């Protein structure tokens, strides 16, 4: 099983939908709400997003080695099956 980690915001509806997507598929995932995180965590999220050539646009979903920025169930599914 690929590891799923996502960065989210507590204010973002697409982040909620992304979480729901994985929950409904019974796929375990970890998430961090950027806006609720402490300063050090926030900094490391910023650096992680930038290292992938992205901005802090949420949800930021890591499926194994791959990254999907935004709510895109089709992409999530195809990466999970890959």
């Amino acid at each position: 099983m690929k590891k799923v980690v996502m960065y989210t915001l507590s204010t973002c509806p697409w982040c909620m939908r992304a979480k729901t997507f994985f929950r409904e598929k019974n796929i375990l995932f970890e998430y961090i709400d950027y806006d609720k995180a402490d300063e050090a965590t926030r900094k490391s999220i910023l650096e992680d997003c930038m290292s992938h050539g992205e901005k802090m646009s949420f949800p930021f979903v890591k499926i194994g080695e791959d990254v999907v920025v935004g709510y895109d169930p089709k992409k999530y599914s195809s990466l999970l099956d890959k």
Partner: protein
Amino acid sequence: MDTNKRMEQFRTMFQRVIDPLGYKFSPDEEIVDFLLEQEVMLEKEKGSPFCPCQGLTGEREHDMKLVCPCIPFHREHYDAMRRCWCGLYVHKDVDDPDELVQISKKEFEASRNKG
């Protein structure tokens, strides 16, 4: 101020900004209500109605470009998606916002360099 009242004020003020840019409020009323409510909370907490779906760094120059409507500062990217990042606004010709997908910054830049 009462949340609903502030949400209505946002609607009126932001409509004037997005209209000349070729955008309208999303026809998905549920999303619009949710996002506007978040923006009222963000204004109370942080002083400005920031985008509920993009991260703030605390640097003024960065964060002010994320105050709603942030379309002017991300125009090409949003035009390519035909919506703004959080989906509060869509291009005027969009009837079904569910057909649209979010394109990340990296994907957008890659497609622009190709085209």
